[in-house]
């Protein structure tokens, strides 16, 4: 509209005032263009950040395994995703009766489990992805605390620790022969002594050992 007005003004020969006004309008138009472009740029950046935000909000111990789908032909597939909302609910419930457990649970932010049955259709793809996850974790300086290969089972456990204070993330990857692959990610702020206390409290031998091992580290 402004361009059209300017052209019309020139044609009519309205003089200096009109040309100055046109200059101002052109400057304001350029400013508006920049403003719109910048706004769009900022909006796009914000959108991109928002897309990536869930991964970062989950904490440093979060690992994105990617999306697995149940095999169309009907194999085994389990996906469990317990987020912070539900975990804090459980912590609130356990607070009265078991404050120690509540404290440990409150430190958790996410529990994600994938169990994928392997068949001819998905085997190579899933195995590649598990290997890629392991390679990524090693690159990102996660500590491989368990590496075991026995009778077709291939187990790896990685930990992300914050100094000696706490465990921020735990990843367990299991390839059970040609049958299934298991991926587990626990994100939180887990104190080793709490794990040991829970192990003692409920007489769970593996937890006792994990707590002791983490305490020694």
């Amino acid at each position: 509209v402004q361009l059209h007005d300017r052209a019309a003004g020139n044609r009519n020969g309205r003089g200096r005032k009109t040309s100055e006004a046109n200059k101002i309008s052109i400057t304001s138009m350029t400013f508006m263009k920049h403003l719109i472009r910048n706004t769009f740029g900022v909006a796009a950046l914000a959108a991109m950040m928002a897309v990536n935000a869930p991964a970062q909000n989950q904490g440093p111990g979060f690992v994105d395994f990617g999306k697995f789908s149940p095999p169309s032909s009907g194999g085994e597939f389990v996906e469990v995703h317990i987020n912070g909302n539900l975990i804090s609910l459980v912590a609130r419930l356990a607070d009265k009766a078991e404050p120690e457990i509540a404290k440990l649970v409150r430190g958790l932010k996410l529990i994600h489990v994938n169990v994928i049955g392997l068949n001819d259709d998905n085997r190579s793809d899933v195995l590649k992805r598990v290997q890629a996850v392991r390679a990524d974790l090693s690159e990102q300086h996660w500590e491989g605390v368990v590496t075991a290969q026995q009778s077709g089972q291939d187990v790896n456990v990685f930990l992300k620790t914050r100094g000696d204070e706490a465990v921020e993330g735990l990843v367990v990857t299991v390839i059970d022969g040609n049958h299934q692959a298991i991926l587990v990610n626990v994100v939180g702020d887990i104190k080793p002594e709490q794990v040991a206390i829970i192990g003692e409290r409920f007489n769970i031998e593996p937890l006792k050992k994990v707590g002791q091992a983490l305490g020694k580290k």
Partner: protein
Amino acid sequence: MNPNPSKPVIPRRSKWPWLVLGMFLFLGSLAYGALSFLRVSSDTRALRDCLLQATASNWSKTIEVNVGSFTFSLARVVTAFIDIPAEARTALRAARGAEVAVYQRPPGKACFDMAALVSGADEVMADRGWERLVGAVSGHQLVTVYVPNKIRSPRNVRFCVAVVERGQLVVVSARSNLEPLMDLAIQKCSEATALTKCDEKGASGSLRSHRNGRLALPL
């Protein structure tokens, strides 16, 4: 001057309109209550419809029931005078409402695309503010559990479960107070732990007495 002043005549109101209205309201609420037993909530309906459409089979309704908090309260009052197991009483105390929809189809060898079923259900429920907690496929069975994105209070937690297999589709939605259930779980867990510890002590005790050369057989 008015030699014969008469009192103003107040028209007598009939009680019949009120009685009829009251009766209508009573019958209406009764009918609404009866119908609400047979009508599931919109979230359950959405999940059910999504699965029915995605499987594209000739499903026929077996039953659809919606039992609300009033019925559960009534059940709690009634069972207060009956001797039932403590666990059952706790479960009843926790229940706030339940809906069940069961559909069946003629036996056949239909193979559903489980990936499509799960992603379709996820999409529908995500639009309504639910997220999938568990998704499990085993052979031709699918089980999904959804919970709301935001759970405000442990006293009123909703969840929705869908089970699909070749011949049957079941959608269950329930509202529950988790506090008594959690108390029960912790109590049972503590009992089990105490029992295990006792067993271990007993076992180590018998081992020690065996080492001492005494007979340590359980009587």
